[in-house]
């Protein structure tokens, strides 16, 4: 068939398909609500797209002009984008993810999560005990000014716990920027053959252990524990999970098993990113509690520790049981 005849025969189809792409492909939700559409019906689009692909293949095979082939190719590419785009995100789906999918994902990665937990807990306990035994060890990690500043944050007379100056709102912003950045970086640095998450998690452990131990020594244990008890439920578990996600990624790089290394990276990178979404939400929650609840100084210790216990229980239950009924459904 000559090119001219080919074009006249199929021109209308191409025009219809182009019109559909222009009008309905970009905004599918709005398109579905629009009942006045009189062009190519949505249900016929896949057929039209497949015909177009066939015509493109024919055009190439028969050596039609490069311009025509390029035009059909561009049209096909647009069709391909509309056909194979990922599904639209739904709010209900996000809710389901945090409640059920995320805990399932954490349990599915139990191995790296345990490793990450050990990497966090062992340095924490070790440094706590070390500073209890030899109090001067704290100077290895912090300068005298830093220590003084830290002590003044938990001074018994302060009516705001855990901060020297600044309003709740300012600290909320600070926790969001600082803590979530650390969490996300912990995951991403897994690509450095595991050095990143190991260092980040272990260093956090050492730091927290030493600070807690020093404040305990200095007689500021009560305000300190009252401050950290509640938000640590989300914050510490989020650090451990981010570390686990980073370890997963580095394992894909170091021991991909039977998969190609790049396939292993893509697959585990995605799992890690899903974990990171959860970590993000947890740290957001932690920042909120830390900024607006933890700092309240006048509440009696019993209320503070009661709420903290409830939060720890909630997090544990959520991670342990969340999404367990999925398989039953």
């Amino acid at each position, binding site marked *: *068939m*000559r*090119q*001219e*005849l080919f074009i006249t025969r199929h021109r209308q189809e191409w025009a219809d398909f182009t019109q559909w792409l222009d009008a309905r492909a970009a905004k599918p939700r709005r398109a579905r609500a629009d009942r006045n559409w009189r062009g190519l019906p949505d249900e016929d689009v896949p057929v039209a*797209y*497949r015909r177009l*692909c*066939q015509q*493109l*293949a024919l055009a190439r095979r028969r*050596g*039609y*002009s*490069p*311009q*025509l082939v*390029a*035009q059909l*190719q*561009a049209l*096909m*590419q647009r069709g*391909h*984008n509309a056909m*194979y*785009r*990922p599904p639209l*995100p739904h709010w209900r789906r996000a809710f389901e993810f945090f409640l059920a999918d995320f805990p399932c994902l954490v349990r599915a990665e139990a191995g790296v999560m345990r490793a990450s937990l050990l990497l966090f807990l062992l340095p924490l306990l070790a440094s706590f005990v070390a500073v209890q035994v030899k109090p001067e060890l704290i100077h290895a990690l912090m300068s005298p000014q830093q220590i003084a500043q830290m002590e003044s944050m938990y001074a018994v007379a302060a009516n705001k716990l855990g901060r020297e100056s*600044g*309003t*709740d*709102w*300012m*600290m*909320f*912003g*600070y926790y*969001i*920027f600082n803590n*979530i*950045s650390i969490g*996300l*970086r912990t*995951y*991403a*640095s897994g*690509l*450095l053959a595991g050095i990143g998450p190991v260092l980040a998690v272990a260093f956090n452990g050492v730091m927290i252990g030493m600070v807690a131990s020093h404040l305990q020594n200095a007689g500021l244990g009560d305000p300190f524990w009252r401050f950290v008890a509640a938000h640590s439920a989300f914050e510490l578990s989020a650090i451990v999970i981010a570390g686990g996600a980073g370890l997963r*990624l580095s394992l894909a790089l170091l021991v991909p098993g039977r998969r190609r290394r*790049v396939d292993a*990276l*893509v697959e585990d*990178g*995605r799992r*890690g*990113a*899903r974990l*990171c*979404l959860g970590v993000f939400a947890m740290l957001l929650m932690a920042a909120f509690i830390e900024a607006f609840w933890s700092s309240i100084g006048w509440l009696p210790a019993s209320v503070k520790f009661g709420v903290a216990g409830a939060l720890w229980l909630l997090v544990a239950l959520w991670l342990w049981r969340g999404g367990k009924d999925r398989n039953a459904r």
Partner: protein
Amino acid sequence: MLDTVREVLTPEGVALRLPAAGPVPRALAWAIDFGIRLSLLTACTMLLGALGKTGMGVYLIALFAVVWLYPIVCEGMFDGQTPGKRALNLRVIASDGAPVGWLASCVRNLMRTVDMLPFGYASGLVSGLADPWGRRLGDLVAGTMVVHVPRVRDAAIITSEAAQPPAQPLLPTEQAAVVAFAERAAQLTPERQIELANLADMATGTHGAEGVQRLFAVAGWLLGKR
């Protein structure tokens, strides 16, 4: 290394051609985005400066959004194009040619942390130069790549209605060249048309302006006009 076009076979059995973008346009796009981010933050500073410490908190949240969420949200919402990429006609797509999803966009942008090491995207540059399709580490892990958006030209226009067989039989590649000339002629100056038509004198048998008209006629004949 030399051919940066990736060909992906779609389920319909047709090859998609994906022209991979190199480090230079990508760096430029990043620079434009960086400018936009900076100006967003500057605007925030001016607005929130009056609010004291509360404003500082809101500013820090905005800083987080600009640093971490800006590329993810732009790529997720605008079909793989941040404003900088749009300006340079680039697009992020999945390696199989499908549009980039939210999750892949998250992965490739979180991995910037590693690509930036040890300074100024050096790891990303090395990875981009070593990879046949210019992917940085984040792209490798996310399974994505950055491509040039093809420019679509308008419908083919043949200026001549006449049809005439060529002076001697033409090879398929020569036929394609003649037809391509006829379709592109509208974008060329008359002098250039004559220059090109003179090269094809074995098909037309003449020279000059008449050769151009004759070549149009040959193209018409090849396209099926009789």
